[in-house]
Structure formats: C-alpha cells, structure tokens
C-alpha cells in the first residue's frame, strides 16, 4: 500500500499538467514574441465552449471536438492578431496589458450573453470517468490522459521550435526583425502563425481543462492569473520552464489545499512571489 501522499502528488501533478496545457500557448506567444497577451484565457474559454456545444448539441465524441477547439481558437486569434495585436508588438507593456484586458472583458460579456452565466457541464463517456486502482491509490483515467497529452505536447513543441525551419524562423524574427526581413523571412506571416499556434493550444487546453475546473464566462479572468503565474515563473520563452513551473505550482496548490485548507489560494501566490524574487527571469529564463 502506498501512503495517501502519493494520491496528493498524483492529483497535484495532474493539476499542474492542466495548468501547463492552459498556459503552454501563452509561453509560445509571450515567450517567443514578447507580447503580453492577457486575452489568452479568452481563447481557452472559446475552445471550451466549442467542445461543450459540439458534444451537447451535436453529439460529437469528446476526442473529435478537440481538434475543432484548437482550430476555432487559432482562427479567431488570427483575426484579432491582424486587427489589433500586430500594431502593439513594439508598444509598451502597459498598452499590451490594456488592449488585451479589454478583450478579456468583452469576451466575458459576450460569453455570458450567448451561453448564460451558469456552469456548462461536460458529459464525458464512462471509460474516461473511471479510475484505476494501483497499490491502494486511485488514478483517474482522465487525469492520466491529461498527463500523457501534456508530455506529448511538450516534446512536440520543444523539438518543433528548436529543430525545425519554422522554429528557426520564429526565433530569428524575434531576435532581430529587420535582419530577418532582410534574409527574406516573411515576419508578419511567421508571427501570425506563431500566434495562431499559441492560441490554438489555448483552445485545446481549455477544452481539456473544463472537465476538471468547469466552464463559465468568468473562466477567462479566473484562470488568467494562474496562466500568468506559470509562464512568468517558468521563464519567458521556455517551454520546459513552464512545464517545471506548472508541476511545482500544481503540487503546491493541491498539497496546500489538502493539508492546510484554511490557507486557500494563499500558498500558490506565496510560491509565485518567492520563485519570482529568487529568479526574476523565471526558473529557466533566457533573457
């Protein structure tokens, strides 16, 4: 028999992976492009609503809705990028924060108008809601899948951004835009695709997360803080840093709520401030 601490560790890990899936897209846009996009969770919320609507109104299977959540969030984000964000790549932090928080407010109101303010539950098939018991500790299947998917996405992104031509183009465009243009890289297109990738990942993360954290219009604001914590603690532009930060924060949050419930969300903020003061550039910071 394993002591209950393993159950807490497993739940913390799964929660951390959920935070990671929500924030990995932000790590791409904020980290690679240095653009503070507070509207990230709005795209995650869009992905969540796509999944819920496709499943409840059209009877699609859960896994078939995931690519749709990705594509919907990516397409909508490209529209926003073309219309608003691209003007602000060189603007101050404050302008980026203001514009994107404005979009968050709009998205919260629009979601409330279309879908109502109540929680939208997700009806998962039975095999996803079951759990395995191993040496006295219950492992929920869905959480195992979350962990597996998070590992896959990390691997794909790290390899993709470090070893492909596209990844090299993105890094070149970020490091020196004029030089990259001079070399014939279509910087606008590269940024648009990167942005779509980041927001698409947000949509996917949102679709995967709602089973555990629920979905209502305030989603875009509530989880924004967690996403920012993961990305800034992990280190800008570092996928593996976000991965590590998500694990640390997920486990400390779940463990804190399990062992010292009266502290509430206090612990996760304390961990964040401590980590940021220790390493202002994040756990694995490059800049």
């Amino acid at each position, binding site marked *: 028999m394993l002591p209950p601490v393993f159950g807490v560790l497993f739940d913390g890990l799964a929660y951390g992976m959920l935070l990671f899936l929500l924030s990995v897209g932000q790590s791409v846009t904020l980290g690679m492009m240095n653009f*503070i996009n507070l509207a990230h969770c709005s795209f995650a919320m869009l992905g969540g609503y796509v999944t819920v609507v496709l499943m409840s109104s059209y009877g699609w299977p859960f896994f078939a809705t995931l690519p749709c959540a990705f594509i919907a969030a990516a397409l909508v984000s490209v529209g926003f990028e073309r219309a608003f964000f691209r003007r602000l790549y060189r603007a101050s*932090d404050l302008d980026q924060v203001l514009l994107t928080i404005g979009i968050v*407010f709009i998205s919260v109101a629009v979601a409330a*108008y279309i879908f109502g303010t109540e929680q939208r539950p997700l009806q998962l098939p039975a095999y996803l809601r079951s759990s395995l018991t191993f040496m006295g500790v219950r492992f929920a299947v869905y959480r195992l899948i979350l962990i597996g998917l998070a590992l896959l996405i990390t691997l794909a992104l790290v390899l993709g951004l470090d070893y492909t031509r596209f990844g090299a183009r993105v890094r070149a465009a970020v490091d020196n835009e004029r030089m990259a243009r001079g070399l014939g890289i279509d910087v606008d297109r590269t940024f648009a695709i990167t942005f779509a990738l980041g927001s698409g990942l947000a949509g996917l993360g949102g679709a995967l997360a709602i089973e555990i954290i629920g979905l209502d219009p305030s989603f875009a604001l509530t989880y924004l803080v967690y996403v920012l914590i993961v990305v800034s603690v992990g280190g800008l532009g570092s996928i593996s840093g976000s991965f590590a930060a998500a694990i640390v924060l997920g486990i400390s949050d779940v463990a804190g709520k399990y062992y010292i419930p009266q502290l509430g969300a206090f612990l996760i*903020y304390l961990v964040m401030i401590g980590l*940021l003061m220790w390493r202002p550039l994040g756990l694995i910071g490059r800049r």
Partner: protein
Amino acid sequence: MALTEGTANPRLYLQAQTRWRPIEIAFWLATLLPYALFPDYLSLASQIAIAGLFALSLDLILGYAGIVSLGHAAFFGIGAYTAGLVSKYGWGEPLTGLAIAAVAAGLIGYATSFVICRFRHLALIMLTLGFGLLLEELANSAGWLTGGVDGLQGIHTWKLFGYLPFDLYGRTAYAYALAVLFVLFVFARRLIHSPFGLSLRGIRENFVRMPAIGAPSRAHIRTIYTIAAAMAGIAGALLAQTTETVSLESLGFERSAEVVVMLVLGGAGRLYGGLVGVIVYMVARDQFSGIEPQYWYFWIGVLLVGVVTFLPNGILGGAAKLMSRRSRS
C-alpha cells in the same frame, strides 16, 4: 511632454511648469458646482473625489515612474481597513484616522518597494499582481479581524472638527474628500515639478541610464512608491470613513484593474489624467447602472480597445494633440 522654450535652463523650465494656468483654476472651481447644480449627487461626487485621489496616487508611479502596477488596490485596502479598524475600536476622529491609515499604507509600501525597485516588465507586473492577490486572500482568511466576505461593520466616524456631522446626503463627505484631494493634489503637483519629479520621468524613459547622470533609480523608485502607497491609503481611509463600511472588494484585483483603466482613459503621465478619467468613467457607470453589470464590462472592454488603438495618451493626450494642431495651422 514637449520640452519647448526654457529647456536651456532647467530651473526656469521647472518654474514655468509650476505656474497655475487659468484652466486649472477653472477646473478646481468647477469641482464646487455639484453643491449648486446636483445636490442629489453629492455622495457620487465624493466617491469620484476619492477615486480621483486613488488614480492620482497610481499616476505618480505608473504615469511618471513607469511602474505598471496591477495591485495598487492593496494600499487602498490597507488604508480602508486601518481607518475602519481604528474607528471601530474607539477612535473615530477623521483626520487622525487618515494620518494613521497613511502611515500604515506607507510603511507597507516602503517595505514592498525594496522588492518593486529591483524588477521591471513582466516580473514587476506579476509581483504587484501577486502582492495584491496575497493580501486579498489574507484579508479573506482573517475574518475575525476584517469581517471576511461580510465586510467590516461597526465603523463610526466622529464629526469633522467636532461639529460637522457626516450626513446621508454626503454634503460633509464631499467637502471633506474634495479638500483632502486638493491638498494632496497640490503636493503631487509640487512633487512632479521638482527636480525629483523630472528624474522620475527620466527613469520611466530609461531606467538604466539615469544612474549614469547621477539619479539613483532604485532609491527614487522606493521614495515615489512609498508616497503613492500612502496616498492610496488615504484614499481608502476616506472611503471607509465616509461610507462607514469596508468590503473585501476594496483591495481586490477588480479595483486595481479599474483604477488603471480610469487613469489610462484620462491620460497617464498627466496630473489631471486620473481626475478626468475618473469623472468620465464614474459618471458613465452611474448613468448605465440600470444595465446589468456584465454588459457594463463589455463597454469597458470596448473603451479600452478604443483608447489603446485610437487615443494612446488618453482623453487629455488627444485633446492636447488637437490643440497643438489647431495652433499650428
């Protein structure tokens, strides 16, 4: 900030800036109009004066020193809770209450400023946000002291100077809040037009280069952050004393975000930016209050996107641009 004539002699430039312009005098005289024109809206007017003071304190750090803070309501809340608790436990004298709240908020501001001055950009935004959230959780869990989600009850503010009671219509409250706002505004105005204020603007433009010309960036940031914290604390204390209640919402993230919105709407980095933004925002919210709050947020969002896209320096920045264009043609 257009540096035109008199830039050759910095002393003359600063002196020219400190002169009171007719439009400023007209603005402050106009703040007395609610007594004559809208006597029913005096409590709204006192809320506006309080929010104006809060926005002014944020302007000192955000507009002038370039510290983007998403947790400035922390100091507002500390001031409000301090004034509320002092009054609840037996000392309801308003002016000393303000002073105690200012000292409390200033002390905590001074303590955190040692962290704030070491960081820029995203880490700074996240740290201010984190401090704000941490404090909100703390106030929430310390229910025995703060009343938790129910808010702090049982505050009683004594009469101002011993004979002016705080009435239901907000006559005393508005005069009190306006007077405090004016005194602190004059102080902030003096501060901004001093060499210290000028070096703050230098730090905003280039944090690293200022020490090279002899302005210690970090020490200056610590000073202005402490001053701004104390001013925000006074604003919070004013709210606690005039409404005789303090809620958790007074130090929440929404209030921090809202004050940034109001300041930017008016124009950050301008003394009157916060005041103009607060007036426009609060009057609009009062007029739209019949609409459900969710849709109010929709309009704030539209407003933010519009301001950033079309009016990068706020209402006052846009007005200044129009004026200079007209005088040139």
